[in-house]
């Protein structure tokens, strides 16, 4: 009996404890930035391999590059970082960087041109997923001894042909352009991996922060680098916590336990707008949502049909309803804020106009299949299109599948239409021009599955040479004009119905200043944040 009396007493105690008031901290410390984000996409911290959003955010704060963006003014474009200056050779193929003096890595080792040479060569040799950003300039493991070369305090890179300087420099602002502490990394080399395994969970940079720890699907902790050449960050510690659920992020934000919530859904954004001490910050991101028409389809390849479909999307309706605040209308392949991006959006829902164009093309009783990945917003976009297309007499059958199922069929040119999203790989217009409007060999044998134009079986109607020309144009203004021209033609003739550009809406405490997620071209930067 005593046992059970004791047990009952224990039960009562447990209930009482479960309702005990525990002091909950209402505000994060003034020198600490706490962010809630979904970080389960991080696979490694090695800048030669990291290619995910959350990983790029971390690396942006750990590593400096030869050139980088100013986190307080992205419109300026690339600016000097570890390279104090650079010169371009007469033939336009070589760029010589002069390194900034007196900069040290977080380890205390000096940053030298040899570190820069080793870092870029290493990225080419390791040949991980993002390596193409560098190897597209003709760098190979065999030629890097000549093409990426340090000499004293300078580093010279030589490309296989003349490219626009802005193209090369924009690519060097990508994560793969990070300069790594060669000495430290090589001290931790295993089986000739150039420190790849060690750098997956450790840092060897000269940026504003160093990596304290990364617990997958749990948290990333950064510590300020007091010797950062750009000035020691005000936020001495940054903690990024993995909080998958939007409602949980909102509760944490409103309670003051975090400073930034990065994955709030529209309902929670509406909620935090009313909360005291919280503001909503919006930044355009590079992700585009589009419909692609397969040009191997006998009817969808007709110019009038391509045009008609651009009038069959209820851009305004979707933007103002279920996409509220998360996407903005954008009908060009270069995201807004990219060099040369057009802001013209000539198409709107016009059923009558679409009907006229379809009639002109002799189209009747058209039935098509559109492939959609199983994501709520995409399914809703497809349903909206299904509804408006029906008003023009087109029957749209929606096929929902996993990413692999839809992607496999898209790449095999099997779908009539695909509803897809595309995010840029690096902050230069070539990243999108080179896939939406570039397709030098449209044959099936070419298997250029990486090119969106090829996936749709579209030969680009003469845009390919224009893209080739734009990427080699040295004059920045001329280059901008060339992309404007390409986009204008693309809008009218292409089989891509580009609809929306993503907006990231973050809930942040109102005392947090200078926080940026990097807009469309960069990554999150914490070095200038104050509270």
């Amino acid at each position, binding site marked *: 009996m005593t046992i059970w009396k004791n047990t009952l007493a224990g039960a009562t105690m447990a209930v009482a404890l479960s309702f005990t008031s525990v002091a909950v901290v209402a505000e994060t410390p003034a020198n600490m930035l706490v962010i809630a984000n979904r970080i389960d996409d991080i696979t490694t911290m090695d800048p030669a391999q990291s290619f995910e959003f959350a990983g790029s955010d971390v690396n942006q704060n750990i590593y400096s590059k030869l050139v980088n963006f100013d986190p307080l003014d992205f419109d300026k474009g690339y600016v000097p970082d570890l390279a104090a200056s650079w010169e371009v050779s007469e033939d336009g193929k070589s760029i010589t960087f002069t390194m900034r003096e007196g900069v040290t890595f977080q380890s205390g080792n000096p940053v030298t041109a040899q570190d820069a040479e080793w870092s870029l060569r290493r990225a080419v040799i390791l040949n991980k997923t993002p390596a193409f950003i560098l190897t597209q300039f003709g760098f190979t493991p065999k030629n890097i001894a000549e093409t990426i070369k340090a000499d004293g305090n300078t580093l010279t890179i030589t490309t296989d042909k003349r490219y626009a300087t802005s193209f090369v420099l924009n690519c060097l602002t990508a994560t793969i352009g990070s300069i790594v502490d060669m000495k430290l990394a090589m001290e931790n080399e295993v089986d000739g991996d150039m420190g790849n395994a060690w750098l997956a969970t450790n840092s060897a940079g000269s940026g504003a922060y160093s990596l304290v720890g990364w617990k997958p699907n749990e948290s990333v902790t950064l510590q300020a680098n007091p010797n950062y050449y750009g000035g020691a960050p005000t936020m001495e510690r940054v903690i990024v916590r993995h909080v998958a659920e939007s409602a949980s992020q909102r509760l944490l934000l*409103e309670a003051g336990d975090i400073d930034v919530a990065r994955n709030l859904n529209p309902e929670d954004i509406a909620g935090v707008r009313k909360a005291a001490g919280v503001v909503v910050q919006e930044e355009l991101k590079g992700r585009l949502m589009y419909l692609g028409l397969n040009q191997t389809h006998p009817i969808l390849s007709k110019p009038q049909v391509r045009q008609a479909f651009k009038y069959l999307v209820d851009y305004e309706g979707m933007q103002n309803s279920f996409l509220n605040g998360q996407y903005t209308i954008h009908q060009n392949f270069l995201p807004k804020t990219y060099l040369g991006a057009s802001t013209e959006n000539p198409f709107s829902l016009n059923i009558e106009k679409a009907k006229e164009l379809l009639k002109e093309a002799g189209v009747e009783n058209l039935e098509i299949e559109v492939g959609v990945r199983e994501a709520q917003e995409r399914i809703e976009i497809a349903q909206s299109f299904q509804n408006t297309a029906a008003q023009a007499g087109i029957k749209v059958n929606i096929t929902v599948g996993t990413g692999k199922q839809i992607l496999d069929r898209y790449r095999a040119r099997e779908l009539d239409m695909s509803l897809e999203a595309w995010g840029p790989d690096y902050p230069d217009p070539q990243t999108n021009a080179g896939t939406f409007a570039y397709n030098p060999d449209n044959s099936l044998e070419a298997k250029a599955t990486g090119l969106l134009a090829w996936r749709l079986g579209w030969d680009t109607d003469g845009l390919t040479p224009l893209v080739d020309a734009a990427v080699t144009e040295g004059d920045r203004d001329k280059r901008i004009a060339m992309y404007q021209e390409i986009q204008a033609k693309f809008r009218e003739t292409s089989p891509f119905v580009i609809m929306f550009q993503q907006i990231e809406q973050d809930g942040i405490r109102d005392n947090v200043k200078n926080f940026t997620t990097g807009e469309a071209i960069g990554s999150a930067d914490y070095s200038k944040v104050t509270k």
Partner: protein
Amino acid sequence: MAQANDNGGARTRAPLPGWFTGTLKTIGSIAVTMLGLVFITFIIGRVMPIDPVLAIVGERASQSTYEAVYLQLGLDKPVIVQFAYYVWDVMQGDFGMSLLNARPVAEDIARVFPATLELATLGVFFGIVLGVPLGVVAAVRKGSWIDQVARVVALVGYSMPIFWLGLMGLLVFYGMLGWVGGPGRVGIFYEDIVPSVTGMILVDSILARNWTVLKDAFSHIVLPASLLGYYSLAYISRMTRSFMLEQLSAEYITTARVKGMSEWDVVWKHAFRNIRVQLITVIALSYAGLLEGSVLTEIIFSWPGIGSYITTALLSADMNAVLGGTVVVGLVFILLNIFSDLLYKVFDPRAK
């Protein structure tokens, strides 16, 4: 020798001790069960419409990069060969590397499983200490208001979506009242303060005698554990009530009452003693269910446990992580079964 001669020269082999054959049988049973579990999970992993290569290299990788990783993962070999390699590695304690984060799966599991173990143990504790007495009282007072309350409590526990209940709990006890800590295992100020010995923060903070961290960790675990405990309570209390009703209608209970035994003794010393074995099964199943990981609870409370680990791995086609997690969950079920069997022998002499 003389005896051997008496038996026509044949040697008589002494029978193996019972404990030895029992242990052998148990090990054999575990091995077969685990092999079957790994095989089924392995096959499911191979037929899933997710491409592990694509998950690693990304959609934009060139064909050559894709093929290099395809070969690196050994996907060019027949499935049965891949399975044989995997089983061989597992037998040596090697679950392989996570395809996505390039860490040993064993290390990842060692990190996430203690989080689930801590949560599930506290949850099932709540479930037992509240659910068992509630079920007993509901049976003894059958049809009374307390029985009706117990029925409603259990019904709500069965039918209310845990996702909604968790969010409401957070909203009220964390957001509005501030009585408990928010999502996460511990407040940001206390992260990594106590050295990780067991991986369970409550235990580690006690070992480190850091009462501040213990208090903070408890404030974070109490809500998700109560939530899980509530679901256990619903199940345990209904089953307890059912078992008790059966015992209370038995003739030996009537005899005990006729002999003038107190009601407390009738209920707890006689009726309850006879349902202990059945209750052990119910509690073990409930505990195993919680140890498997409650994915939704882990998501809402940002609890890095094995449930969300396996789910994330599954969605990312990280099959080594899925298989490793599944093996661990399978082992948990088996060990709990063995533990239940041992307890049967303690509580029921007939089982010895």
